[in-house]
């Protein structure tokens, strides 16, 4: 097996393990990353939502927000599956785009 193939398998394994990124924090009762709170959470944190933040926070509606598939039931198992799915989707799109860009950039240097 080529190294590239092995590495893709490695990434696949990481994608399958991605629910750990949900499970481990919840085991420790940990919330999200520092400084990555939703705008509304500031009401709890400081008692108000900064004006500018209120306007910008909802600028963009991402299709797979927070690595969850829309319309899922809650619960860790379902969320975990959603995580795996979005991990694979994200890996595919990221890899695809990076590959495209690399090909465009390396165009002049075609080797036989």
């Amino acid at each position, binding site marked *: 097996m080529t190294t590239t193939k092995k590495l893709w398998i490695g990434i696949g394994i990481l994608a399958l393990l991605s629910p750990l990124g949900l499970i481990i924090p919840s085991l420790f009762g940990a919330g999200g990353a520092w*400084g990555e709170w939703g705008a509304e959470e500031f009401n709890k944190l400081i008692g108000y939502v900064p004006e500018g933040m209120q306007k910008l926070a909802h600028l963009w509606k991402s299709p797979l*927000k927070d690595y969850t598939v829309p319309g899922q039931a809650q619960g860790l198992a379902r969320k975990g599956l959603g995580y795996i799915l979005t991990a694979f989707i994200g890996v595919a799109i990221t890899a695809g785009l990076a590959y495209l*860009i*690399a090909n465009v950039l390396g165009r002049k*240097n075609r080797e036989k």
Partner: protein
Amino acid sequence: MHIPDGYLGPATYGTMFGATIPFWAFASWKLNKTLKARQAPYLALGAAFSFVLMMFNIPVLGGTTGHATGTTLIAILLGPWAAVISVSVALIIQALLFGDGGITAIGANCFTMAIVGSLTGYGIYRLIAAGSDRKNKRRLVAGATAAYVSLNVSALLTAVLLGIQPLIEISSSGQPLYAPYPLAVTIPAMVSGHVLLFGFVEAAVTALVLKYFQRNEPAMLA
């Protein structure tokens, strides 16, 4: 470390786009001259690896989480400019599709993680690894150290970007318009987690994967 929309005011996020674009342009130019078509799969692998690595949230004291980025590793294996592009791609997809990091903050996040992360990591690696053979243990120490330091530099920079908001973006009544916490709060909050934990995770991942490459594909450690 992904800054969401609404945390940075236009002065900052605009400046960060201004800072990031020249690096993207230079990286593109550099890759145009040096990247061989057969290396394209590796850029894809690097971007994908960074993406998936950032999904592993690690809890830290204080109830928050953080993650590794893989930036230094990619810089070591593919060069800093390829890392700039790969990690930027991962960050942009995260922002657009998954709401991980803001759209206005794309410049800032790419600057802190993809650009500063790659260049710092690569520089430190080359400094420590200088002259050593590819399969030498020193390469692993160099990679681990570089990864640790560069992640923390990225974290510090992020903390600074957030912490200056209450200084420069305030309403007429003196209330912060965007990220409300000052440097005295953001710096300890962000840096502590990375110094104490996430930096070590980044270092360990980097060393482990480098070791794998040393054994299986040493040519990539040129």
